[in-house]
């Protein structure tokens, strides 16, 4: 009865013994991507290791380990004796002030990003601009254009790393907290905007459409049906981005000369490693503190 093309037990039997055809197994997109990535990885590593000058050999040399060891030693205060930065309360206070500035920079950045995203994410959602939630009266072309414009802005601002944005901004703003905050804010604006737009796109639209059917205008539909669903998720994203921003402010501070980053760069260039260690301690404290704060805030929003 069977119309098998392969004997039983051989791999890839295409028809069962009762004559029922079995669908063939195909390598899907995921499989292809895996292969593609494996090739990319091989090419990258090959290029790096075989290109010479990669520093790979040196990693395992005595000299490298010795250098690393002495670096860590100097961070810990070897050779500085009493001049070590973390033994001087004055320096602790100074670094603390810088940490405060860094914190302010991060809040400012998140503030810019959050406010900006809240104001502009709606037109970036497909279902709001041209889909089922679109306002009926307005001209369709303008909304579609707006959708693309906002999406492109998001793509650009989130594609360019904060440091590069800061370097550009420092060209026309004087050094301080502001340029750093702007750079971070701009970059995260793109990220938050895109994430929020996606939240709207993935919404269950029934409540909103039902509301519109019972006579609500666009703005009311927004306020009653869309925002309540988007806001909790938005806040969660905001808090998460804050955790990332606080880590990046020190880096942006290198260039924008604000907060811990400014002194970090200076101390590194003067080889004052104990100062660097002190700054790092404040940095880690700041990061852990914000992490805990955000975890608590998230629980507040959730319950």
């Amino acid at each position, binding site marked *: 009865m069977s119309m098998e093309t392969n004997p*039983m*037990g051989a*791999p890839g*039997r295409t028809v*069962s*013994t*009762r004559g*029922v*055809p*079995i*669908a*063939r*197994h195909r390598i899907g997109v995921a499989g292809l991507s895996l292969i593609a990535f494996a090739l990319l990885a091989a090419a990258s590593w090959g290029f790096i290791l075989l290109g010479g000058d990669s520093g790979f050999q040196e990693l395992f040399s005595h000299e490298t380990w010795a250098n690393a060891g002495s670096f860590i030693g100097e961070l810990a205060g070897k050779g500085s004796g009493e001049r070590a930065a973390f033994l001087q309360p004055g320096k602790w206070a100074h670094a603390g002030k810088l940490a405060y500035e860094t914190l302010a920079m991060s809040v400012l950045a998140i503030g810019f990003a959050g406010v900006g995203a809240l104001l502009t994410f709606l037109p970036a959602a497909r279902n709001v601009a041209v889909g089922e939630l679109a306002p009926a009266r307005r001209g369709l072309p303008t909304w579609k254009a707006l959708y693309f414009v906002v999406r492109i802005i998001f793509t650009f601002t989130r594609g360019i790393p904060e440091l590069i944005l800061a370097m550009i901004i420092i060209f026309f703003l004087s050094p301080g907290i502001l340029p750093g905050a702007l750079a971070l804010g701009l970059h995260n604006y793109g990220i938050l905007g895109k994430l929020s737009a996606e939240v709207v796109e993935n919404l269950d639209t029934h409540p909103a459409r039902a509301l519109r059917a019972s006579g609500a205008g666009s703005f009311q539909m927004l306020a009653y049906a869309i925002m309540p669903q988007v806001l909790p998720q938005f806040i969660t994203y905001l808090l998460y981005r804050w955790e990332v921003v606080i880590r990046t402010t020190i880096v942006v501070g290198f260039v924008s000369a604000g907060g811990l980053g400014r002194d970090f760069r200076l101390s590194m260039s003067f080889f004052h490693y104990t100062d660097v260690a002190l700054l790092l301690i404040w940095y880690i404290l700041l990061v852990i503190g914000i992490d805990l704060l955000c975890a608590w805030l998230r629980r507040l929003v959730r319950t």
Partner: protein
Amino acid sequence: MTNSTNGYVPMFILEGVAKAYPGALALAPISLKVEAGERVAVLGPSGSGKTTLLHLMGGVVQPDQGSILISGLPLTGLGPGRELASLVGVIHQQFDLVPHLSVLHNVLAGRLGQWSTLRSLFSLAIPRERHLAVDALEKVGIAHKLYEKTSRLSGGEQQRVAMARLLVQAPRAILADEPVASLDPARAEDLVRLLAEIARESGKTLVASLHSVQLARTYFSRAIGLRNGELQFDRPVGEVTDKMLERLYDLRGLKGEA
């Protein structure tokens, strides 16, 4: 203790088995014997202890009192593992398959007890003993779904995949906890018939808890009635009267009802 042939040692022996959960007695002391090859239906209202009884018989939970022997072996000695799996297999209302895997892999998972770790890993990439899965799937009627992602199948089809996995696992007894509660009546009957057929063909013992008395009467040989954790009756299916059933399901006097 030797494992003599199926016909001589009862599959399950429960003596004075009771189980309590915090605040409630789930199962009052119960004693029963199930012979190898029997098909037993467990009936009763929700919360009457049917699931607890099956979990006890399957070794999923331990009794607070009493002893359970599976094919002559004490249950407490058999932890979850290969040996227990070769004696008893359980299917639930929630099919509990791995949704991301293909049907083939979910069915072959029944062999994990027998395979070495290396072989298990290897099989994920290149399936081993594929014919076992194909044969099992043919018995349950969905061989053509071999390579489909499990999550794409309908409820009834997924339950069949669970059954196919059980066939591959090849235990001596099958315990089914409300296997068809989430299916429509036509599909439910189909599945129960399949289950009973499989049990009969391979001489396996089958104990299933059901809501439908009609299915019990049609496909099973013996019926056990549980109410409020107590054994109400234990009779051949032909001797179960409507009056007994009425008393079994009576809302008055049920725990949890006003």
